[in-house]
């Protein structure tokens, strides 16, 4: 590869390259920043991410592949890259005050966050299964460390170990699945896999088992039932700022891979796998929403809620075998990821604002009286809860509208009805938070950090405003997926 080729190739992964280089540089710079001024590291990390966000936006409309078709830049990757960079910024905003308050302010937090985001971006851009595996690990390994960031707090260490063991367990499933797909087709490039499968030259048994194992592995990452066991424990034990980032980033990363693989590479196995996705979606929606009812800890409740939302997004994958519906399904999934990201970050910002040292202030009862004492924050939380439930005029409603619409369009009316029913069930525990905030007496304490409040209120405003402009946003997502096929 000549130098000019290298430059051309690097241009395709420019946001990732800049992010990784900046993260490495920041590791060294951080050494010279005194311990009591780690806010500077946060600022530098945020600056880097803002630049990366700009570079990702600048890639809009481009459609190129590089490094022997192992990575690609297209509408799909650009859409997700922007989402990842933005969630990185939100992750820093949530962490800054929280880390200081809980006495774990260390510069590595921000660099690990950046490495994890580079993994997510690579995930969105990968068109080769091996690159996808590397991206999966690049996004996961920093998250294992971040989960244990509150060391030596026992619950944080426990969360890290559980996440690590189950995460690498699922990684092994992915890699074995990739090995079988390689065995079935002689290649790991998605395009070649598709071509070989279409020609009928592939060993279909191996291909289906391989694809199934990849689904199992990625199912762990996106917390789909029955691979969700780690989620509540890890979400509860990890520092809240990490949980917030993880609940958005890791899930979106996992879905980026699932969508890319199953929309591009293995539609030919759709006859075998759509039923698997349908069962996964139904189980995930049902269990996530039902078990969330029994939770009294807000972090656990949001963990089960995040499981349930994975179930809704899985609905999009059920339709992937139908050429007419698949693009709508992917667009709906992307839209839902945005809706989920905005709402989730907002809700976690409120949770972090109320959290006190030693993991206090995380029970639902601690939210009593919030409506009277901090009306703005309570209003924001109410918006997020309504958005999670899917009540208009919020992003959550529009997200579910498009997803259920895609399912009905594909002829899965029963599945869509099931989604509606489980949303109704979820209203019980989401609205309970609102009831506690407004109708019970209490005296909650809230952190005075402006960034937390800004994130919460900005997310609430976005949740409402973007839902009013949902059409253009959905069109953006639809244009992003146009290139996929």
């Amino acid at each position, binding site marked *: 590869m000549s130098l000019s080729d290298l430059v051309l190739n690097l241009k395709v992964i420019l946001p990732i390259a800049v992010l990784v280089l900046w993260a490495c540089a920041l590791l060294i710079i951080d050494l010279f920043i005194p311990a009591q001024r780690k806010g500077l590291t946060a600022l530098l990390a945020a600056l880097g991410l803002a630049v990366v966000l700009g570079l990702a936006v600048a890639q809009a409309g481009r459609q190129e592949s590089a490094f022997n078709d192992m990575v690609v830049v297209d509408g799909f990757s650009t859409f997700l890259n922007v989402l990842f960079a933005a969630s990185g910024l939100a992750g820093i905003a949530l962490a800054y005050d929280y880390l200081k308050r809980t006495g774990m302010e260390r510069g590595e937090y921000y660099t690990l966050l950046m490495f994890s985001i580079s993994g997510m971006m690579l995930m969105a851009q990968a068109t080769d299964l091996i690159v996808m595996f590397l991206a999966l690990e690049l996004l996961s390994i920093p998250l*294992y460390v971040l989960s244990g960031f509150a060391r030596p707090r026992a619950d944080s260490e426990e969360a890290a170990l559980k996440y690590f*063991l189950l995460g690498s367990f699922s990684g092994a499933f992915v890699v074995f699945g990739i090995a079988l797909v390689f065995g079935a087709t002689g290649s790991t490039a998605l395009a070649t896999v598709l071509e070989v499968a279409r020609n009928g030259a592939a060993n279909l048994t191996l291909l289906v088992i391989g694809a199934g194992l990849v689904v199992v592995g990625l199912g762990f990452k996106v917390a789909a039932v029955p691979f969700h066991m780690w989620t509540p424990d890890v979400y509860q034990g990890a520092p809240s700022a990490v949980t917030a980032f993880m609940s958005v980033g890791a899930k979106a990363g996992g879905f980026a891979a699932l969508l890319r693989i199953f929309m591009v590479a293995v539609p030919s196995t759709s006859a075998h796998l759509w039923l698997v996705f349908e069962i996964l979606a139904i189980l995930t929606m049902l269990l996530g929403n039902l078990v969330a009812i029994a939770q009294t800890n807000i972090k656990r409740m949001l963990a089960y809620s995040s499981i349930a939302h994975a179930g809704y997004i899985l609905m999009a994958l059920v339709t992937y075998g139908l050429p007419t519906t698949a693009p709508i399904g992917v667009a709906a999934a992307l839209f839902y990821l945005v809706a989920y990201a905005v709402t989730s970050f907002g809700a976690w910002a409120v949770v972090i604002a109320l959290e006190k040292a030693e993991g206090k202030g995380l029970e639902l009862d601690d939210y009593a009286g919030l409506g009277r004492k901090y009306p703005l924050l309570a209003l924001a939380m109410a918006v997020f809860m309504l958005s999670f439930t899917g009540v208009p005029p919020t992003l959550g409603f529009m997200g579910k509208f498009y997803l259920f619409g895609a399912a009905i369009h594909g002829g899965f009316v029963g599945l869509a009805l099931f989604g509606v029913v489980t949303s109704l069930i979820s209203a019980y525990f989401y609205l309970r938070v609102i009831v506690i905030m407004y109708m019970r007496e209490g005296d909650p304490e809230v952190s005075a950090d402006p960034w937390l409040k800004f994130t919460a209120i900005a997310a609430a405003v976005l949740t409402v405003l973007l839902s009013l402009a949902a059409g253009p946003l959905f069109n953006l997502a639809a244009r992003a997926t146009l290139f996929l096929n």
Partner: protein
Amino acid sequence: MVPVMYYVILSAILFIIGALGVLIRRNAIVVFMSIELMLNAANLAFVAFARQYAATSGQLFVFFVMTVAAAEVAVGLALIVAIFKTKASINVDQINTLKG
């Protein structure tokens, strides 16, 4: 020459042994070793298929997997050491403060 399918079956058996090990064994280090066994089962399958297709790419992937496994070891052992310092145990059944 031994048929490629034999190697694939062996790798599947190794993978299943590894998966069972993760589910059954209670010592965090042994669980971790079982995960490594699963990764190496995948490596064996990669090499076997690479031979079948005469494609060197399959052999190259093994290096990627080994590198990732090494990175996981670094993080995993650090976590296990940290948890041993607080709990004086690495039995995964005793690591159970989080539940509900």
